[in-house]
Structure formats: C-alpha cells, structure tokens
C-alpha cells in the first residue's frame, strides 16, 4: 500500500537510521532511502525476499523477529518500523518491547480489525472477513493476534507506552487519530499507523 509508505516516510526525519522489521522484498526500504536518504536495514524471514533485497543492494539480515531481535543492541536505531506484521507474532507484546529497546521510537502499522467492512462481514455474514488488507482465509492466515486501532491504543495506555502520533489510512485519505475521534476513526480506517516510544 503506497499510501502507507508515504505516511511512514513523512513520520521519519531525513538521514535517520531505520530498521525495517519484516522488510519483505525491500520496497519500503527502497522508498525510504530514495525519499529521505534514510540509512535502512532490514530483517526478513523469507529466503526469496532476502535475495530480492540483496539484489537491490539493500542490507538485510535473514532471521525471525520473534526470536532474533536480541542481536540488535539497545537504541542502535533512530526508528524501528514494523509494517503490518505485529498481528502475526506469537508474542506481540514481547516483540513490541524489543522494538522499543532497539529504536528510540517505533512505527507500527496494523490492519484495523475494527474497520466497518470487517465488522459487517462478521456481524451480518457470520464469516471471518477477507478484505484487501486482510487477504487470507481463516485457515491459512498468518495473523494470530488481530486487533483494532482502539485495542492498540488501549494496549499502549495499559503498558505505559507513549503514543506520539497515530494516523489512520482509508483508501487515499489519511487522518490524525486522537482519543476524541477514536471511535469514528476506528470504524473508518483500514490501517492504523502508530508512532510510539
């Protein structure tokens, strides 16, 4: 989702040092490098994706974020980005704590399970929702811990994690999400992008 990349790039200052956890084929890393001259590093599990990053000349470490984040020293990056993978971890809380240790700030984006189409699907059709941002069916989804924008807000509050900024993305529109508009934005955002730490 190009819009997501744009929002993430806008949250990051030029020339900063960024670790992209679950960097896939390196599209976001490439975008950040070209747009903001960001010094990027990636962590990626899949061999084919790792190779794609290497072919593009992007530094990438093959490894599992669930078990191998310990290799990155404390505060070794300005920012750590986790794009739409938090819900796929066995222990998202542990991973998030690790990201906050490695980066001075963390950007987490989540597919919003509170989006109205998702709610409709479950409420009226009684089926697990399959949408553009949630393309898998219940039996082959990698997503273990789906949550809504409101859930992640609550989580940060409970765990004393400082929320600096939250952006909701719906199609081509983006909007700032605050406590005051949380209910409505939680209904109309496909994606939530959190800047925390």
């Amino acid at each position, binding site marked *: 989702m190009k819009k997501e990349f744009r929002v993430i790039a806008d949250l990051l200052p030029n020339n900063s040092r960024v670790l992209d956890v679950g960097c896939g084929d390196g599209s976001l890393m490439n975008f950040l490098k070209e747009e903001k001259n960001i010094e990027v590093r990636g962590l990626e599990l899949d*061999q084919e994706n*790792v*190779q794609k*990053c*290497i072919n593009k000349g992007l530094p*990438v470490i*093959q490894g599992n974020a669930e078990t191998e984040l310990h*290799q990155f*020293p404390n505060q*070794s990056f300005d920012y750590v980005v986790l794009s739409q993978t938090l819900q796929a971890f066995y222990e998202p809380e542990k991973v998030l704590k690790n990201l906050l240790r490695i980066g001075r700030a963390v950007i987490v984006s989540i597919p919003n399970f509170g989006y109205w189409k998702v709610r409709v699907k479950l409420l009226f059709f009684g089926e697990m929702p399959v949408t553009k941002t949630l393309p898998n069916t219940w039996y082959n989804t990698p997503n273990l811990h789906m949550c809504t924008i409101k859930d992640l807000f609550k989580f940060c509050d409970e765990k004393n994690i400082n929320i600096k900024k939250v952006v909701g993305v719906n199609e081509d529109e983006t909007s700032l999400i605050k406590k005051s508009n949380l209910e409505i934005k939680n209904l109309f955002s496909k994606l939530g992008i959190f800047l925390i730490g």
Partner: protein
Amino acid sequence: MPSLAGLFFWMNRKIENINKITITKPLKLDCGKTVKNFPLAYETYGKLNENKDNAILVFHALTGDQFVTGTNPVTNKDGWWVTAVGPGKAIDTDKYFVICANVIGGCMGSLGPKDTNPENNQPYGLDFPVITIKDMVKAQESLLEHLGIKKLLCATGGSMGGMQLLQFCATFPDKAFSAIPIACSSSHSAQNIALNELARQAIMADPVWDNGKYVSKNVQPKNGLAVARMVGHISYLSEKGMQEKFGRKLQEKADYEFSFNADFQVESYLRHQGYAFVERFDANSILYITRAMDYFDLSKQFKGGLVEAFKNQNTKFLVISFSSDWLYTTKENKDIVIALNASGADVSYSEIVTDKGHDSFLLNEPEFLKTLKGFIDSMYEKFKNEKRI
C-alpha cells in the same frame, strides 16, 4: 603410475612455472620471527579495468590454492571454485578481475615448509615458523600493492578463506568496498581444533613423516596424510547428505567380503579422496595451515572483543551460512553478524537451506550462487557511483 618421488619432481617443475612475486618487504610474523624475500604465488582471471574498480580478491580454504577456476595446471583438474567463478558465472570473470593467492605455509608456490631454509640450505620442515591467519593476510596485502589495487570491489572466501577475510577487514579496514565471508567463524571452535588435531596426529603417526624431515628424502607420509584428508572429508558433509549419497551401498560387489577391504561405498570414497590428495598436497603444509586456523581468534586480538575488531568498518558485508554445516555452524556465522551489527557496520546475512553440509559453498547450490551474484553486482553499481562522486 609414476613413483611418488618422480611425481614430486614433476609437480615441483610445474610449480616453478606459475605466477609469483617475491615479497621483499620484511614480514614480521605473529610468532616473532621475520621472513623476507619470499615467494607468493597467485593467479588472476578476467581483466582489471581502467578505473581499477572491478577487482575481487578470493581467499582460499585449507586445502585450496590460487587456481580458483579453469583448469589447475598442476593437477589438471577443475579449479576449486569453478562453480562460482568464471565467464558468466556468479563471480563473472567477463566483468570482474579475480585474484587469488596461495597462502604462505601452503605448497603451491608460496613460501612453505617444503621450501629451502636459507640458513642451512635444507628444506624447512619443522624449522618453518608457525604462521597465523594474520600473517597470511598481510602477505596477500603486499600482492594488492604490487598489482596497484588501492581498494577492492569485493573480497570473499569460504571456510578458512572466510577467516582470512575477517582478518583482512579487521586489519585493513579501508581495503575492501564489500566483503562476503562464507561458512566461517571468528574464532576456531573446540570441535574444529579437535578435528585439526586428529588430522595432525594422523600425519605425525606415520613413520615416514619422521619429524617433518621426509622432504629431503623426496618421500611423503602418504598414509598419514590420506587419513588426515579423510577426517576432513567427513566433516565437510552432513549426516543426511552422507546417508543419501552412500547409505549402506556396497562398492561393486553383491555382498560383504568378510575382510577389511572397502566393502562400503563410503569407505571407497574416503580412500579415494585421501589418496588422491597426497599427490597434490604437502603433509607439513597441513600441519602449519591447520595450526594457523586453530590459533585464529579475532576477538582475542582486540581488547573490546569482536565488536571492537569491526569498529570503523565502511565495508559492506554479506555473511552466508549453510543450514546443515556442522563444522562452521549457522550460529557461529550469526555471531559475526551480531558483532557487525553491534559495531554499526552495514551487514546482510543469509542462511542457505541445504543438506550438503560445509561443502555447499563449493557446489552448485543455486540459491547460494544467486545470492552471491546479486550482492556482487549491486555492490559494483554502488562502488562505481561512489567513485564518481
């Protein structure tokens, strides 16, 4: 079949015709001794371009030599890395200038224990100084100077070659734009020291070895050396790979012979590998080179440990390991990655899934070769751009 002495004579004659330089600059070895005016044999492939920005230095492994690809003129067999290096291959010699030198302590033309000791005009044998990985690397740096290469596009090597590479980057942090250590370690493990000791003891137990003095008699402790090579060959394969390749298959026979001949294919394979090796390698060289590997401990060299060794690195690293390699495990390779990360270096890492064991880096492993090619080609683009700026 020529006699072994005849074979030696023939090999030595061939070795006299290979490329070498004489390094006049005295080299102070880690053991405290100094060598000077010594030969360093090397080979190059491809052409160095005008900007001198397409040079790739390859470090060879324990039993390798400078003949990376094409036909080795001494053994008449394929070069040891013919799968990866050559025209149109992952390390494309139509595009890049590939350099490889025989390590000192070796036996393919560089200064080694079978050379003549100028002090007594006898072959060195055990009077040859104990050398280290660092000594090997320093000698090769002189070759780069000789070739007029200020900065390599890339340096790479597997196994002991990878260890030389790590040492090279730590000792000469500005000499390589990029580096690919493959299936190696930053310090030799207890298991690897033990296996090397097994190889050395096999050689020393052969009466022909005679405290290393066999050279002047034009003989070779071939039984001991063959066993040493067999130990190596077992460690280069994986349990699964060996089972799949040999299983319990018998060697050209229907049933057991009830003897100690090579009934099993795996036995026959080891004997063949062992005895083929004695025709091209010097037993004392194995002692010296394995010792250099055992002494290798990069974190010991630097007070702050491995992180300190890689401090101020501008080199871009790609570390590669193989999932079934039990000699230089994924964990050991990852420790290198962790240290590079901690020192802030630019590092990539890939673990190739294969059941071919440590040998994988010499074999036709498509994922490995693709990764190698992708990295080198992208680094070349970056290096050219950087030089332009």
